[in-house]
């Protein structure tokens, strides 16, 4: 692993055995993601995209192999260490936005900084700055249900970015959005990537996302398929 790498995955295998029948979601992946990249992981349904992202983010432990994130071996971390590590180093954007419905946009974004123990004054300043950057500062006081899908996803982007992580992981971020909103969201994320240097890693089916990604990794049957083309997906 070099100083320029955000993620290094070596021989990662993930097998689920929930129902007694082993399901091989990831079948041995070696992967390196460099700092500042804007990369999309694509592949057909069931190819292991989400599982791979979960393993890389430390949400799931690999059955075999190692995952290094920002120089730390996360596959061996305890639950508490992982929790703190994710809080400080990884931002998440989910397909279904997953904002807390009882908190306003501002409070949703502020939440992670609260976990980090950042003082209230600084929290407010950073929340308003990031909301301005994602273009929804005027909706700061609204609850998620009072926002459109695109606006909610912008709040989710702001929540992911506000803690100044080294990596933002987005699982199908545009799956619930129309093409125009998806395009605008991706443009905004790409701009943030360029301005802040934060690394973005997506899983997607969406051509709009693929077109805006600087790199594309194709997953098929739990493995990186080096020969696949965009048309195959």
């Amino acid at each position, binding site marked *: 692993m070099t100083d320029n790498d955000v993620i290094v995955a070596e021989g990662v295998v993930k097998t689920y055995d929930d129902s007694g029948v082993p399901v091989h979601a990831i079948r041995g992946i070696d992967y390196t993601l460099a700092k500042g990249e804007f990369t999309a992981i694509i592949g057909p349904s069931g190819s292991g995209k989400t599982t791979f992202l*979960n393993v890389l983010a430390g949400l799931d432990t690999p059955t075999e192999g190692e995952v290094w994130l920002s120089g730390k071996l996360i596959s061996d971390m305890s639950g508490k260490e992982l*929790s703190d590590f994710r809080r*400080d180093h990884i931002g998440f954007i*989910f397909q279904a936005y997953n904002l807390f419905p009882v908190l306003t946009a501002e*409070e949703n974004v502020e939440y992670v900084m609260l976990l980090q123990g950042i003082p209230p004054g600084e929290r407010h300043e950073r929340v308003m700055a990031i909301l301005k950057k994602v273009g929804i500062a005027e909706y700061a006081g609204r609850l998620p249900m009072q926002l459109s899908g695109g606006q909610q996803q912008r709040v989710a982007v702001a929540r992911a970015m506000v803690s100044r992580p080294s990596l933002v992981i987005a699982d199908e971020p545009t799956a619930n959005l129309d093409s125009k909103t998806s395009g605008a969201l991706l443009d905004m994320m790409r701009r943030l990537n360029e301005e802040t240097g934060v690394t973005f890693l997506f899983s997607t089916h969406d051509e709009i996302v693929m077109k805006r990604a600087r790199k594309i990794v194709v997953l098929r049957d739990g493995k990186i398929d080096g020969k696949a083309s965009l048309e195959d997906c």
Partner: protein
Amino acid sequence: MLLKLAWRNVFRQKRRTILTLLTMTGGFFLSSLSIGWMDGSYSSIIMFFTNNRTGQIQVHCKGYLQSPSIYSTVNDYQAAGVFLDSIPGVRAWAPRIYSGALLAVRPRGAGSGNVFTNSAAASVIGIDPVMEEAASGFSSQIESGEMLSSSAADTSYSATGQIILGKELSIILEASAGDSLVMLTQAADGSSADRMYVIRGIVSTGNANIDRNTCYITLSDAQILFALQGKVHEIAVMTGSLGAVDELTAKISAGLSGENLETDSWKTFAREFYNGMKADEASLKVMIFVIVLVAAMGVLNTILMMVLERRREFGVMKAIGTRPGFIVRMIVLEANIMGIISVIAGGILSTAGLLFLSEHGFAMDPPLDYGGTVFREMIASITPECYWIPAICVIITASTVSFLPALKAAHTKAAKTLRTV
């Protein structure tokens, strides 16, 4: 933020929260009312029982309570009385003599000869008419005839004495006010004694067991009859309130300790009565436990539903770095917010209910017979226990019941939840 999150989460599902709040508030209300009702009933019963008969505190010769004997006397009751009068909180005191006798009544229409065929054994209580009236309001219990009077005749053995019979005893003897009876007994000096009495009145103390075998003569008469001049067996002490009894008992006991006397509260000399009340208290606890259990089921159901519905949210919280402890605290706090609201609402409702019941009470129909004492009306009392016991029960229940679901939520597997929900 934790409080804000918890507060807003409580009101996410308004209908369900309101139902849960109603359950918890209802639990508080019923527990509070039960306690107030029971406290009020106990206080009524105790005050009735002690004011009418026993007093709240009694002074005896040492050992008298364990083994009552005509010889175990308070020898200088006047001196003890002076001491009692000096203690604030002592409302009144009454000296008494206890003994037994055989009573015989001449049946009506039997002429003026000495034909005393209706007889019964009875407890004889010597009372000071004035002091007894001040202490127990004895005259108010007289159903027919009139109260004993302190008269010179009491000290004249040759004259006819005056006596009051318990109502049931008068029925057994077929006697009524104005009739004559003969009392046969033995005095403390071993001599046998007999005396002629005119029945001045019939008393109904409210306790049929006592009225079945008790008669009353004046203290001075009893002292002569039983050869106990200047002595009594008991000093019954009346206090202003039940709450002061233990403290006053200790004070009196300390003040009379050198006199070969012992001082006991009603909890000791009416131990069976006291134990009966304690047993009732145990049944109250069971009732409160059942009420709390029902409320707990309601809270548990709500918390479980809440946790189940929000699994994805907990998954997201975990994913973005929330520690399990935060989630546990949040859910327990949510349950406690509902608990606190219930305590406030329940407190207001209970106050209204208790105020009503303490003013109006409930008529007991049929009347409640408690150890022979009949109670026709019960009222509730408002005590701190009416509030803090249900409040603690509600808060502890909310915390306990929410803890396990909170732990379950805190250990949500983020990846699994986000994948499957």
